């Protein structure tokens, strides 16, 4: 197992980091978060079109870069670090793998090259708090009819393509691609996380053509869960990146802030708390890369690892964000300083795609009752 980065991986990360340091500054993030509903269109254009973000995990056969989970993790870490207001996670970590895993060859040839080229912002119509398929599909004469509601869809407001897993009467699942103006009812949802927009979606007898269906002949819940693993890994990567970004800005603040004639950073109690956060981050990040490597090869305990990763990533982001506000003192409680944006993301992401209590319960079931130990 090789968890150190290759030269290519390092340069990918550095390039992304450079772009985001330049273009996703605090001021840009605030502009997008406070005035543009959490979406920075020009940043997206740069990232998707110029830098080719969206090609990352599209197979080479479909004009993508054919890279794996490690590169996905690096990319989303960087997005998290700067709280980049772009639908990278929805598009690259959730949407694209769904099509790659579940789509037919025809659908893939049709969609993936365009996705790789950065032509779509994708939202996936699964309830974000605990992915379960709630939309119903029925075959019609010339295609399908979709019914149902999904109340919490991440990155829906900026999406140009909506992927809809839906259930047929016989229990099988299908995957549909719909344009937002295809007769969907889109409601607005405001959450405390100002850097990721959400929307509500309603299908009331929405008729779509036969070619809206992306899969060949249906798939199981289990296959859907497998296809969502990169999304869960990517969310953790985003959390870990955000924790790093938040720790960085905290370290910078306390190195400058003087109280009692000393920088706050010179107080040992503060130093030890920062050091402990470094260890937590190292722990979570190591598991991220380990799980990414295992996701690439489909290792046997990958689901447990991704559950564990979810726990560690949510914990470390929470811890760092909490400490960031505390260590900023008075100004940490003001809108003008950035810690609260991370803090908001910490609480919001902690309950996306399930909760840590659920993750721990699943791991326990395996460790205690299952084969693993």
């Amino acid at each position, binding site marked *: 197992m090789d968890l150190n980065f290759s030269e290519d991986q390092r340069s990918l990360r550095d390039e992304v980091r450079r772009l985001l340091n330049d273009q996703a500054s605090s001021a840009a993030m605030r502009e997008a978060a406070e005035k543009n509903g959490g979406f920075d269109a020009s940043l997206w254009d740069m990232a998707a079109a110029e830098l080719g973000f969206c090609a990352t995990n599209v197979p080479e056969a479909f004009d993508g870069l054919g890279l794996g989970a490690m590169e996905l993790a690096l990319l989303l870490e960087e997005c998290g670090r700067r709280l980049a207001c772009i639908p990278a996670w929805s598009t690259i970590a959730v949407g694209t793998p769904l099509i790659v895993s579940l789509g037919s060859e025809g659908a893939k040839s049709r969609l993936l090259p365009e996705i790789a080229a950065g032509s779509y912002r994708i939202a996936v119509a699964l309830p974000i*708090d605990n992915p379960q398929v709630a939309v119903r599909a029925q075959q019609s004469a010339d295609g399908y009819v979709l019914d149902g509601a999904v109340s919490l869809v991440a990155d829906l407001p900026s999406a140009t393509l909506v992927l809809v897993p839906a259930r047929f009467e016989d229990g099988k699942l299908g995957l549909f691609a719909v344009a937002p103006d295809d007769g969907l009812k889109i409601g607005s949802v405001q959450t*405390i996380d100002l850097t990721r927009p959400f929307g509500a979606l309603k299908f009331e007898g929405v008729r779509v053509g036969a070619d809206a269906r992306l899969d060949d002949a249906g798939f199981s819940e289990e296959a859907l869960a497998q296809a969502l693993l990169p999304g869960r890994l990517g969310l953790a990567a985003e959390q870990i990146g955000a924790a790093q970004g938040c720790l960085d800005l905290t370290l910078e603040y306390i190195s400058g802030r*003087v*109280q009692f004639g000393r920088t706050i950073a010179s107080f040992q109690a503060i130093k030890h708390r920062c050091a402990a956060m470094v260890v937590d981050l190292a722990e979570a990040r190591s598991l991220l890369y380990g799980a990414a490597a295992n996701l690439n090869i489909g290792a046997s305990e990958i689901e447990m690892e991704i559950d564990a990763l979810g726990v560690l990533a949510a914990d470390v982001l929470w811890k760092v964000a909490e400490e960031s506000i*505390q260590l900023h003192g*008075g100004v940490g*409680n003001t809108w*003008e300083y950035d810690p609260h944006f991370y*803090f908001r993301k910490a609480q919001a992401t902690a309950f996306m795609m399930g909760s840590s209590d659920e993750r721990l319960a699943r791991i326990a079931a395996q460790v205690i009752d299952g084969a693993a130990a």
Partner: protein
Amino acid sequence: MSAVQSLEEFRRQVAAWMAEHLTGRFAELKHRGHAGDGDALPDLRREWEQELAAGRWTCPGWPQEYGCRGLSVAEQVVFQEEYARAGGPGRLGHIGEGLVGPTLIAFGTEEQKKRFLPGIREGREFWAQGYSEPDAGSDLGNIKTRARLDPETGDWIVTGQKVWTSLAHLSDWIFVLARCEEGSVGPKGLIFLLMPLKQPGIEIHPIRQIGGGAEFNSVFFDGARASADCVVGQPGDGWKIAMTLLSFERGISTLGQQLGFTQELATIVEIARENGAAQNPAIRARLARAWAGLRAMRYMAIRSLEGGTSAEEELERLGYKYHWSNWHRDLGKLGMDVMGFDGVIINDDHRREQLRQMFFFTRSDTVYGGTNEIQLNIIAERGLGMPKEPRGKA
């Protein structure tokens, strides 16, 4: 026994008064104006202060010679509890009643008492506090706001900036800790001034908090004036007076505060029951632990108010602020975790919005009035006699 009976009688009396008066147009004030919601309905709350004053419920712990009830500690506790239980709104008169009045009673001239106490007692004049500065947060000895004596008028002319003055935009007066001796450092050379807020040379800017509200302000002084008779104590006494005043902060209101905590916990439990979080064993354990901590907090407060003076009791008292503020901050998180992603969505469900605001606002509990870090320093150094942190030279 009869003391207990009369306390119970007193409790009924307070409850009855609240039931009778926090009604009609005042009903709208119930549960409003507390932390995170501090700037709600200011006009009506001004009137409410006068309603309280008419019932002689402002400043109930001040001595009778100032026209007040002179309640015992136990009675004040009962008052605070019943006030909170009835949903009494956040008190605009809090700073005047809890801080300025006791300070003047302890250090003020007869003239100052005559000038200021009635306005506070009658709910007519409201006060803001001017301690913290951008570079003097935890380190109050680093006060930079300057007060210079104007030899012509005898006024003190004040220049500088105060931050975290709660509700300055709704107040009439502010007390200000300033440096009156050029070149002095630390606790020396400070003056404690009383200043009208509505005067040229004072500008008030709201501070937007992380939850979105703005109940605190920055107050900028640029040649603002305090007249000579508005100095409390002597020039140079400022530190002593400020420290005494700070000690009033951990006062009786804390038991009313705990009633608020109890209600918050009850709301969380209620939501957990409704949304199924109460089935989650981890949530159950956290709710139980919160209950335990709150119960302990109650007894800590009672012991603290009873004023035992042994070293152990002093230590306990030093730990009280750290305890309640961290407990409350954790409760803020627990409320959110009970709601799950549902709690993250902004909607107009009153209880959920209350818990969301608490989540944000409790972050400041461990900062204002002495950060966690300062509290732990004080406990270690003053309470345990451990070596002091050296001051730097910067």
